[in-house]
């Protein structure tokens, strides 16, 4: 099987869906001539023309709103947000309009739109170019929230998102953009709302998202022979594939959620809430969240590294949860 980069997988998904459906277009800052700040739309304006690959001024509220209106009237926009932080300038269309209009209209108006953009911790871009917003978005009914960790999932999920009749927030981690992974050719999809067990294990369930999936897999590898770790990547944060997580917890009895977003009032807490409600009897220890520290993303690489859980923090947390050590780790924020 060929290997391609995570970012190439995203570009391929957009190109294939634009070939397949003339209603799909891309809109965002620098997406046309420049090909996007991380080159995700490179070559698309040459192929599809400026009608379908539309660069905009720096006016997030206006162009996110425009995309919403276009989706309300028959098109299927892909909105590229240069940095997800910038989406906050367009919070009115993003939160007050897009996820509410299908409901407020009594189901008469559909908004088949994808808002995609990147974030990431680890590239020293500081607090307004790095933050995780997925926990905000899952708190807003009306969206599907997708957060792929591999090139394979990135491609298959984006194609599903573009074909979905509901608004989808598609969150890319720029730290993963250059990872090369197996991605088959041809036509296939990854369904929204289905988790993937990235590594099977029997002693503890680690639910991890985005870049934390890879760190958790590295931690599982380090612990192999000592503790058998199962790593579950929900891939879609909302709707959440709870049955897959519950099946895993039933097998292992222990649940750790690892994420790079801050741990307070977060996705991990939501996973634990749902597991406690549906599978409390299967838990043999208190479930925990390992997440980012409760401050804005710091700039200095030394601070930034300490800000999010690293492989050694995940290893330590797992050992502690299973009673193999009593050391407290500062990264254990949950």
């Amino acid at each position: 099987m060929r290997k391609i980069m995570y970012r190439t997988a995203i570009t391929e998904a957009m190109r294939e869906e634009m070939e397949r459906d003339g209603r799909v277009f891309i809109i965002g800052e620098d997406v046309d001539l420049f090909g996007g700040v991380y080159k995700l739309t490179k070559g698309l304006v040459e192929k599809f023309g400026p009608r379908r690959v539309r660069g905009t001024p720096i006016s997030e509220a206006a162009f996110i709103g425009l995309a919403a209106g276009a989706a309300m009237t028959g098109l299927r926009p892909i909105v590229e947000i240069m940095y997800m932080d910038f989406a906050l300038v367009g919070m009115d269309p993003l939160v007050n309009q897009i996820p509410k209009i299908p409901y407020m209209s009594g189901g008469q108006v559909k908004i088949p739109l994808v808002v995609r953009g990147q974030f990431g911790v680890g590239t020293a871009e500081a607090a307004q170019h790095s933050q995780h917003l997925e926990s905000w978005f899952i708190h807003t009914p009306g969206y599907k929230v997708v957060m792929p960790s591999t090139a394979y999932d990135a491609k298959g999920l984006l194609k599903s998102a573009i074909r979905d009749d509901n608004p989808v927030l598609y969150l890319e981690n720029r730290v993963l953009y250059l990872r090369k992974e197996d991605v088959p050719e041809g036509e296939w999809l990854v369904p929204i709302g289905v988790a993937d067990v990235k590594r099977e294990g029997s002693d503890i369930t680690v639910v991890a998202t985005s870049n934390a999936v890879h760190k958790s897999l590295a931690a599982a590898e380090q612990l192999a022979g000592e503790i058998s770790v199962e790593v579950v990547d929900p891939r879609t944060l909302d709707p959440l594939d709870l049955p897959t997580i519950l099946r895993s917890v039933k097998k292992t009895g222990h649940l750790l959620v690892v994420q790079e977003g801050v741990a307070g009032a977060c996705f991990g807490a939501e996973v634990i809430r749902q597991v406690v409600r549906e599978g409390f009897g299967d838990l043999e220890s208190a479930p925990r969240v390992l997440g980012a520290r409760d401050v804005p993303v710091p700039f200095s690489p030394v601070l930034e590294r300490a800000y999010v859980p690293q492989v050694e923090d995940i290893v330590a947390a797992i050992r502690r949860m299973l009673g193999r050590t009593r050391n407290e780790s500062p990264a254990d924020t949950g």
Partner: protein
Amino acid sequence: MGLRAEKRKSMFGRMLLIRRFEEEVKKLYQEGRIVGAIHLYIGQEAVAVGVSSGLKKRDYVFSTHRGHGHAIAKGCDIKRMMAELMGRDTGLSRGHGGSMHLYDPARGLMGGNGIVGGGIPLALGAAFSAQYRGTDQIAVTFFSDGAANQGVFAESLNLAALFHLPVIFVCENNQYAATTPVRRSFAKMAIAQRAESYGVPAETVDGNDVEAVHDAALKAIRRARRGEGPSLIDCETYRLEPHCGIIPDQRERGEREAWRAKDPLSRYKEKLLAERILTPSKIEKMEKDIARELAKAVKFAEISPWPDPEAALHKECLV
């Protein structure tokens, strides 16, 4: 001008229907039969009717929190409007939206909006969609002097001009943003100039003169259909009622009375009577027909079923 008599009568009829509908809503609200946030359109009827009388059914209208007039002017069924105001399953939005969120896409009504200025970029999107699909549809965004002070108004003027979108910005300059008068919210009262500075041709009209509004709208509609891009119409009008519900708001002494003398409905009535387009007996018949339709609408709404919480309150209900 040269508007045909039939057209003028029909515009008057629509304005009268809006006025009587809103008076009925006010009464029902006072009686507790309608709940929630109610923003009445009384005094602004000439704007909705003047603009929408030039539109086709397939054209898009993006309305506001003060949107009953826009819905009636676009031809929505007052029975289903009334049912929506009462939160019933037969309402225009199946009771999910209420007064501020009337949706009737089959008639081009793409919803009101609870956010001041929130509908402006959405209208750009509908205009973009029409341009993209190669249809001759246009989009109208109604908004207020209050929305003209939102940042998204400026962004949208620029984007509409940049993309040559077939969109018409209709400012209902009703002199008040919630309870703050324009003299306290504009450093410089120049909504049309703001548009022109972004390359959007603009005209300021007497928003209480339905034919003046209609003339300006026809020009803007022609431009949009010919692919000549966006326009703005700044309609000077007056909100005779309080911002919301029946909570009284402060007005300067004599201000409301001065505007009442320029009431768009009375003015048009006098004009059409003077020109013998209408007679008192014709008007009386119109009033009776409207009263009967309104009574039917209220009855329809009150006997309509409530929405089913089981069906409406879970995540997948509209997916």
